[in-house]
């Protein structure tokens, strides 16, 4: 502490050291808050799933050598309240609806595809009550046939905190649905009836 530069160094060093303790405190308390608010047992209900298959011949939709590829889309209802995921260390939450399925030619392979996702930045918007929502992404498989697969739909989430590691989890409430070869025209009818 003799000279000015020494004082600057010891002060900034000590300030940073205590800042590390503050970081640990924030990470630990926000984790405890998640557990206390039962964030890892958040219920969700995915209902009224309607599947449709669209044959695409574009390479950007998985078609190879001009062979049409089955692209799967869905319509679904979603009801869940994700506000337990929000505390003082939550920057934003990424919610995504995935379908898990096994390979038909090779049943030991498991695939997980994302149909829909959403970024929630405020706890006030964390209550999701969606009706007859169209999936964001068209999904196709490496194997030729997608019709008849059993997909287990799950709502997963990912908390992006201000400080600390990403936290992954999934909401309770799965739904298993068999993909049927509904025509895309079906989808349009649904949209009309909902509008």
């Amino acid at each position: 502490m003799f000279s000015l530069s020494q004082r600057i160094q010891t002060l900034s060093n000590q300030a940073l050291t205590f800042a590390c303790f503050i970081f640990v405190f924030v990470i630990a308390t926000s984790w405890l808050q998640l557990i206390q608010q039962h964030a890892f047992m958040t219920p969700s209900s995915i209902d009224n799933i309607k599947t449709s298959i669209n044959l695409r011949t574009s390479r950007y939709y998985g078609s190879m050598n001009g062979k049409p590829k089955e692209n799967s889309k869905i319509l679904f209802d979603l009801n869940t309240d994700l506000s337990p995921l929000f505390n003082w260390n939550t920057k934003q939450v990424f919610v995504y609806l995935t379908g898990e399925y096994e390979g038909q030619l090779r049943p030991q392979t498991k695939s997980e595809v994302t149909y829909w996702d959403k970024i929630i930045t405020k706890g006030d918007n964390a209550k999701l009550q969606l009706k007859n929502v169209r999936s964001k992404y068209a999904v196709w498989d490496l194997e030729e046939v997608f019709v008849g697969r059993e997909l287990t739909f799950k709502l997963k989430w990912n908390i992006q905190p201000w400080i600390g590691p990403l936290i992954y989890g999934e909401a309770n409430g799965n739904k298993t649905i068999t993909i049927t070869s509904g025509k895309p025209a079906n989808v349009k009818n649904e949209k009309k009836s909902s509008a």
Partner: protein
Amino acid sequence: MSEILQELGRKLVFPIDFRSQKNTERYQQLILIAGAILASLIGFFAQSLLYLVVTYGLAIVVAMVVVLPAYPAYTREKLDWVKPKISM
């Protein structure tokens, strides 16, 4: 150029006396610990990281004001050097 820098460096030492060196270190530690605890509590009960960062920043500023400058009170005790015995 380097001579000017050396000159400048010699002028920027701002030394303080031994007792103040000990005291400033203790003040610094107290202010920062109290600031860190206070910031954590305020942030937690307000559920706001912004309040936490602002409170801790204020604590650091206070510590800087208390510790960094060589106030006259910190330089009061001059060292008594032994007087040379040999007369020239």
